[in-house]
């Protein structure tokens, strides 16, 4: 005998989804609002998108954010992958200490991380701007990237690397030719995660950015304080679209891999 879902099940799913997505759905709907008033529906329009593409400051912030995101995610993924290899494969002393050092940033309050980075940059005499945000974001996301890659690497059959070495690959080449293709989905996922984290970071960016390198979250935040401009809805919708596309693409890639095996 098979029972359908109970009323309680249905209610909890609906409530849960509503809790997660209602704000986003409302934001997306209102980005197509013809009215300037955020709370009043004035018919369908794409005028805020048009306005957005004429707002040089906003576009500049988007551009900065994307560059920071791509660069910092790439840096964090490369370093995180190396750290994961060291943690999983390395048989050296102090491995636990290294792991602890990396994971500590996961639980470190962002305010403290941002402040300490700021102090570091000031002490080092680095002018704050694009590169300091990028580096800071790499610092922030490194631990996440490491965790994602490490989880996959831990279950990766070590004999495959040995087989590659046995057949004539020096260790680095065995890694590149055999391990990396095997953990590629995890590396891609780590990159996506790092990119997303960088995209929506406000705290660290506020501490470590400087003139000329205002990220989108910083711009949005400062604008909202002056009153909500529907352009914000438009740019947010675009961002959501971008992230969703990335996530769905990553999911599809994983599915295809799974179905071919």
């Amino acid at each position, binding site marked *: 005998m098979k029972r359908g879902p109970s009323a309680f099940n249905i209610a909890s799913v609906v409530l849960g989804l509503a809790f997660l997505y209602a704000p986003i759905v409302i934001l997306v709907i209102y980005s197509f609002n013809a009215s300037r008033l955020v709370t009043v529906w004035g018919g369908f329009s794409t005028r805020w998108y048009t306005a957005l593409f004429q707002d040089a400051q906003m576009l500049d912030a988007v551009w900065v954010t994307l560059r920071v995101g791509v660069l910092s995610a790439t840096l964090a993924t490369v370093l995180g992958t190396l750290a994961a290899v060291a943690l999983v494969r390395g048989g050296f002393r102090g491995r636990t200490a290294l792991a602890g050092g990396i994971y500590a940033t996961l639980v470190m309050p962002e305010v403290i991380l941002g402040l300490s980075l700021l102090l570091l940059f000031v002490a080092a005499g680095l002018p704050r701007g694009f590169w300091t945000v990028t580096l800071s974001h790499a610092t922030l996301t490194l631990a996440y990237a490491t965790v994602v890659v490490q989880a996959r690497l831990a279950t990766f059959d070590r*004999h*495959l690397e*040995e087989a*590659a*070495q*046995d*057949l004539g*690959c020096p260790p680095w080449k065995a890694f590149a030719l055999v391990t990396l293709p095997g953990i590629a989905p995890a590396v891609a996922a780590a990159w996506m995660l790092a990119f997303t984290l960088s995209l929506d970071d406000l705290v660290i960016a506020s501490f470590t950015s400087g003139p000329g390198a205002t990220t989108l979250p910083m711009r949005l935040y400062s604008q909202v304080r002056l009153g909500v401009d529907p352009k914000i809805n438009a740019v947010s919708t675009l961002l959501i679209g971008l992230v969703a596309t990335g996530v769905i693409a990553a999911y599809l890639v994983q599915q295809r891999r799974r179905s071919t095996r």
Partner: protein
Amino acid sequence: MTDRAQHRPQIGGIRSSFAPWEDPAARPLVRFDGVSKAFGDTVAVTGVDLSIYEGEFFALLGPSGCGKTTLMRMLAGFETPDGGRLMLEGRDIQADPPHRRPVHMMFQAYALFPHLSVAQNIAFGLRRQGLPKAQIAARVEEMLALVKLEGLGKRRPDQLSGGQKQRVALARAIAPRPRILLLDEPMAALDKKLREETQFELMTLQQTLGMTFMIVTHDQDEAMVVADRIAVMREGRIAQVGRPAEVYETPVDRYVAGFIGDVNLFEGKVAATNGPILRLQSDDGVFDAEGAAAVGDHVWLAVRPEKIAVYPEAPGGPRNLLAGKILDYGYLGDWTTYLVEIAPGRTIRAARANATRVVDRPLGCGDPVWLSFAPSSAVVLTK
């Protein structure tokens, strides 16, 4: 190479013309010289001396955990010996990393590269050698034909059966023509029938290629069938090295005797000696056996079940006679094995070939029987 291959019949255990280990002038291809290896407190391999010769099919046999894989991995370069020397063609290879050793390994779980096709897997080692593309393609085809996988080059490893994966792993390891091929329990994952077929194919392949094979196994039957020589290992040491027949017929101690095949042991003291014959005084009776031991020595006689004759009636004449009754028997078609109780709680295994079809009086459980063995059939063991 070819004339030797012609001289060697198919069954490993009875190739007799091939015995470079008996030639003092022969130079071994691989030599382990007092090699030891420990992992923390676990001693995996200790004081192993071993010589393996060009063209040999060598088996490392021992129970799980006795250090076989560790010994093999040291030769491949994945473990560094704590002590001793490891020579390949007379050269110390200790400092060579795995990718510089002309030694290839077939891994226990095959370790096929999942993201590469069968052909790419086989080509992997060839590409590392920098062979021209056309030559690689030709060699891959040759290998596919050799392991009977023609037409499957485009498949992925996960689209293959267990037996096919095993063949791909084999082809991948032999394609770059290593000086010695190491096979770690290559047939452990196959079912019994496939395993027997594969054993014969391996032997044929080894002879066709004239390549040196070193196989690790815990299956004594497998080692007996395929190998020119067997090294029996025990707790990190080599207990005995020899042809399958030597190891079976003249084991050096009770461990080897019991590990290879069934054996009956009679424990006691040497009561007297008369030339090559000694007389053993044991709890089971007095037995004569051929062997070297001094009066008063504590020894064991090891007698294989098939060397014990079974009589339904008391025979007159033979020495080493034991009386008992059948506790259990197993009819195996060609053989019948008997479990005979000669004293309360003391049983002996005997086996009899069913040479004639008509049995006047078949023996059954509870029947009284008499057992005997020739003095030359017993092996005298001192440990």
